Every structure is written in C-alpha cells, then in structure tokens.
C-alpha cells in the first residue's frame, strides 16, 4: 500500500481540563471524498484546526504525504498543500472578490519583494498570469462577473463559493470544508454536492468535509467518520455508519 495522503495518528487535543479530541486516528487517500460528522461540540472543527496547524495537537501527529506536520505553522501547512474553508465565513471582507483569490496565490509567488516595489518585468509578467488564472478560477464558480465587488457585498451563497474558490487558489492536495451547506436551501445544497464532485475531478484532490446535512453527506461521502465527545466512534461507508448502533445512540440518545 502506498503512503496515504493524510495520516492522522492518535491525536488528542486538550484545552485546560477539557479534552476536545481524544486519541483519534484515521487516514485519507489521494482523491478521497470523506465526511466527518457528529453532534455539536463533538470536536470536528477542532480536528480541522489541528490538521491546518491553527492548533498544535497535545498528543499525536498529523502526517501529510509522509511528512509530519508537527510544529509547522499554519502558513507552512498551506504551502505544503492543505487548504480550508471556515464554519463562519472568513473572507477578506473589504477587499474585492478578485483580490481575495490573488491573496491565496501567496505561497506560489516567485517574484521578490524588490520586483514588486520596482515593478520589474518579472513582476509584471507574473501578476498578469495571476490575474488571468484567478479570473479563470472565479469563472468555474460563476463569480467572474462579480470580481470587482467587495467580498462583504456578495450574497451568502456566493460568499461560501468564494471561500471555496479562494481555498483552491492555494493549489492544495487536500481541501477541508467546514459545514459548506450551512444556511443553504435544498436547491443550493444540491448544487453544492455537484460542485464538490466537480472540484475533486477538476483539481484531482482529496476533500474532507464537516457537515450536518445528512442527505448531502450520505450522497457524496465515500467514507464517513463519526465523532462524539471527541472520540472516533465509527467509520465506514454511509450504510455502515447509518446502521451502527453507537452512531444512532450519539445522535438520538441511548435507548432505555
């Protein structure tokens, strides 16, 4: 077996006396489309924060493509190929849609600081390329006509899409989506599920999503991990998970 794309090994995260994630391990292969589900406060977002380097796991390690991510800064991890969106959208609100995408190109920039200040040929050529690529990326999300709007003036659904486009602009190998369907209506959710499939095929990357919309999860996830109170209580296909008594218990409470 080849090395998995993402290997999470026995990670634990403690905040003071509270253990948000306890001894969780799983792997994600290249081009996998997996979901992490669980009741509120189960530790899903904390898991994302550990993968992306916003938190350092108390115990355990996260390995990307055979490379341990411990002690790496969030910005380095982005450089290595993990991108994400946020549960509460975090766009650069007062910048244009296009600039939001351009910023995400940051780690791939080759011209130096002095090239930028003196507007050298190298700067101009690369900026032109960035602009074109960014517009092309926005076009995939039907946002190219809105490129000059301020991000905060986009409608909610478009903001979610822009956040995904921005994450993809960092050219990741692995994309983490934190509740992408939150606040969407059924039609939008349906569109989203197509979009996620499309992203995986177009960019040839793995996707992990946290989601509460079970219909979406069951429809698109090839593998599901269930967290409850910080513990990984089940994993497997949609069918396996649905029939797992522990999962039913976590969601509905124990039967008497």
């Amino acid at each position, binding site marked *: 077996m080849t090395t998995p794309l993402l290997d999470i090994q026995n990670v634990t995260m403690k*905040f003071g006396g509270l253990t948000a994630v306890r001894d969780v391990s799983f792997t994600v292969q290249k081009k996998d489309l997996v979901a992490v589900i669980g009741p509120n406060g189960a530790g899903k977002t904390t898991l994302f*924060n550990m993968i992306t380097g916003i938190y350092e796991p108390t115990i355990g390690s996260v390995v990307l493509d055979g490379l341990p991510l411990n002690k790496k800064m969030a910005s380095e991890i982005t450089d290595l190929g993990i991108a994400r969106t*946020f549960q509460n959208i975090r766009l650069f609100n007062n910048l244009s849609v296009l600039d939001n995408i351009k910023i995400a190109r940051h780690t791939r920039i080759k011209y130096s600081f002095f090239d930028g200040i003196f507007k050298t040929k190298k700067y101009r050529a690369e900026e032109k390329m960035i602009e074109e690529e960014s517009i092309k990326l926005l076009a995939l999300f039907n946002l190219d006509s809105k490129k000059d709007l301020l991000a905060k003036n986009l409608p909610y659904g478009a903001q979610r899409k822009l956040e995904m486009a921005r994450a993809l602009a960092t050219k990741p190998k692995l994309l983490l989506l934190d509740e992408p369907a939150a606040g969407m209506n059924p039609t939008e959710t349906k569109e989203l599920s197509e979009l996620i499939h499309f992203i995986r095929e177009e960019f040839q990357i793995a996707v992990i999503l946290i989601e509460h919309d079970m219909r979406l999860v069951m429809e698109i996830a090839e593998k599901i991990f269930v967290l409850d109170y910080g513990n990984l209580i089940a994993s497997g296909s949609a069918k396996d998970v649905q029939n797992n008594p522990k999962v039913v218990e976590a969601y509905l409470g124990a039967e008497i």
Partner: protein
Amino acid sequence: MTQNTIYFFWDCLQYLINGIAQGSLYAIVALGYTMVYGIIRLVNFAHGEFLMLGAFCGYFALKFHLPMPVAIIASMLGAGIVALIVERMIYRPIRNEGRIPALITAIGASLFFQYTGQLVFGADPKTVPPVFKEVLYTFGEVNVSNIQVFIFGLTLLILLFLWWLTHYTKIGVAMRATSFNLKAAELMGINTNKIIAFTFFLGASLAGLAGILMGYTMSVEPMMGMSLGLKAFVAAVVGGIGVIPGAALGGFILGIAENMVAGLYKSSFRDGVSFFILIIILLIKPSGILGKNVKEKV
C-alpha cells in the same frame, strides 16, 4: 550590620509606605478605568480628565469656603456628571463603530478637556488644602502621615464597596452580566445603556475623589489628568484590565515601584519604571496579573 545598611532598610521602608499611599490613589483611578473597559472594552483616555474636572469642582467648592466633605462630594458629582455627558454625547453613538474610532474619540475628548481647561481655568497650578490637618507619626526612622493612612483605608473601603455592589446588588449583577456579554444581557431585559452610563458615573466619581485627594501632594491644574490617567491605565493593565481587584493590585505595585526607584536610584526614572513593568507584564501575561486569557474561536 553597619549603620549604612540599617539606614538603607529604614529608607526602603519609608519608600514602601509612601508607595502604598501613592499606589492607593493610582488604584482608585485605575478602578474606574478597569470598570469602563470591562463593560464596553473601551480604553477611556479621557478618564484622567474626569479626574481633573472633579478636582477643579472640589477646588472651587473650597474657594467658596464650603466645608471639606461638601468639596469631596462636589468633586465626585462633578466628575460623574461630566462622564455621563461625555458617554451620552460621544461614546454611545460610536460604540458600534469598532475599537479604533472609539479610542480616537476618547483621545480627542481627553485633549479637548486638557486644552479647553487651560483656557478656562488658566494653566497655572492651584493649591488645594489637605483634606484635614496633616499629622506625622514617627516609628523609628519612618514617618507616616494620617492622610496616608486615611487614603489607604479609603481605598480598601472602596474595594469592599465595589465587591458588595457587583455581587449583592441588582445593578451590580447587571453590570457583570453586561460585561460578560452585552447582547445577551440586553436580551435578558437589562437596559444596557443605563448600566453603561452608571458604570461611567461610578468610575468617574472615583476619579473625582482621587483628584481632590491628590490636591494635598500636587496642585490642581488642567494637565494633571494626563500623566495620572496614563499611570492609572498602566496599573489597570498590569493588574488585569477589566478585573476590579486587579486594578487595585496594579495601583499598589506601581506606586511602590515608582517610589523605590525614585528614592533609591533617580527620580527622573520614576515615570519610566511604570512603563517598564507594563512591558514585562504584557510579555509574560498580556491579560495582566489577575486577568483571564481569552482565546479567539476559530
């Protein structure tokens, strides 16, 4: 032990006592700073000017030969009323505009009172008679004045009062609720505007009290609020801004440190030492000695 070392210890003790007395005044001013910060997260740069205006109210009361207790009440009410006006006219409209506009406004208000004060009252310092006749008690080589004891006692009393207020009265609990979560407090039916105004009034009247008490060590003048305000603010941050006992602790630490440095080393470093302590604390524990760390939710 040689004679010199013994004198050194007596000197230290003297500086310690002077420091506690001065720290008491810092503490009283810092309490107002901390309460306002605790409730609306505003660094109220004009707090020192509330102190100055309060001190002037007391000064004029004494000039009209009113008795000392009346002058003290005039100081407290004067500072409190100015604070209410400033809060209603300036701070309230800007409260939701974010931190930086609010801070700039506070600095603007501070400057406005300083310089308008110079034009109205004149820039020359005015002497205020002490609260009561100063009596010095001597223990060995150390002097303690009755005013120092009075101020220290008063500070402890104020602390007790604030503790009682915030824990055992309806308005105090509302204050704590508002400082914990303004929106939630509003939804619970608390009139947060009223609570914030009350906090300003309370904090400023304490500043006014400190202002008139300071009259006996320094004179009253329009710029007096600036350095005192900044010091009290440093005290509040050192102790943990937003935490009431923290403000008092910070005040005492600063008062003692300043007197020690000024006495044992060089008086021109008096102002530097408070900032030095500030930096050390910010680097070790930014939320202050008694403050709680808050982590941003991602």
